[in-house]
């Protein structure tokens, strides 16, 4: 126990609302929060993709680098990266039961999601400041 014997919190008070995941419903809520964000951003992001179809590199740079498009894309990327990290973690926790393997998979999942998200955001920022 991290709390000393002097703590006023009873054991039941400490664990209440935390459940089997030991971290409460935070991840469950954020999975829904990021899903809602993507739901709202879906139509604008689709319009951006439609604008790019059949266009060459110069046009793509101009479109992706314009402030409104860049902000929409960055918001969409942040929501996706966060959502997919949380979602895949649930999948891993459901199927991988070896503790060490599970930890390794969760770490790999976090790295992958962060790398994909940051690489995409970096590309948008670079496009916004001229290739």
């Amino acid at each position, binding site marked *: 126990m991290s709390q000393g014997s002097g703590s006023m919190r009873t054991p039941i008070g400490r664990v209440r609302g935390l459940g089997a995941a030991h971290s409460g419903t935070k991840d469950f809520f954020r999975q*829904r929060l990021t*899903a*809602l964000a*993507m*739901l709202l951003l*879906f139509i604008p992001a*689709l319009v951006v993709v*439609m604008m790019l*179809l*059949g*266009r*060459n*590199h*110069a046009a*793509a*740079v101009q479109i*992706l680098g314009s402030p409104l498009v860049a902000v929409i*894309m960055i918001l969409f*990327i942040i929501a*996706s*990266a966060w959502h*997919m990290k949380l*979602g*895949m973690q649930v*999948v891993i926790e459901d199927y991988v039961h070896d503790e060490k393997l599970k930890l390794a998979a969760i770490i790999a999942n976090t790295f992958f999601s962060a790398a*994909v998200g940051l*690489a*995409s955001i*970096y*590309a*948008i920022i*670079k*496009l916004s400041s001229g*290739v």
Partner: protein
Amino acid sequence: MTVSTNRPLSPFMTYRWTLTMAMSFVHRATGVALYVGTLLMAWWLIAAASGPAAYGAIQGFTASWIGRLILLGYTWALLHHMLGGLRHFVWDLGYGFGAAEREWITRATLIGSITLTVVIWVIAYAAGGAR
């Protein structure tokens, strides 16, 4: 040797496989497919930020039949997962648990995702082909 008839049975042995069960699995499968598919999004944005040659390479890939097939699959996976997510929101708010509603909403998800995929690709070909 006699075979005991009282041993516990797995759910898959005692329950008929229903559309709602299949959809629950499909939501997970599309989530994982979208997860892997973010590599494509990152490749596309990094290519745009890298220059005309790199952008030409991904345009060549997306114009190939395998590229088109992957993008078609990605479009459907995203739409199906999105509508499935909407279904989760309805449930999270406490609605749609009745047998008839559950079946109806599940069918609507499937029909909706296929219809929207076709609509989006028709618009995409019209918009992209016109340029």
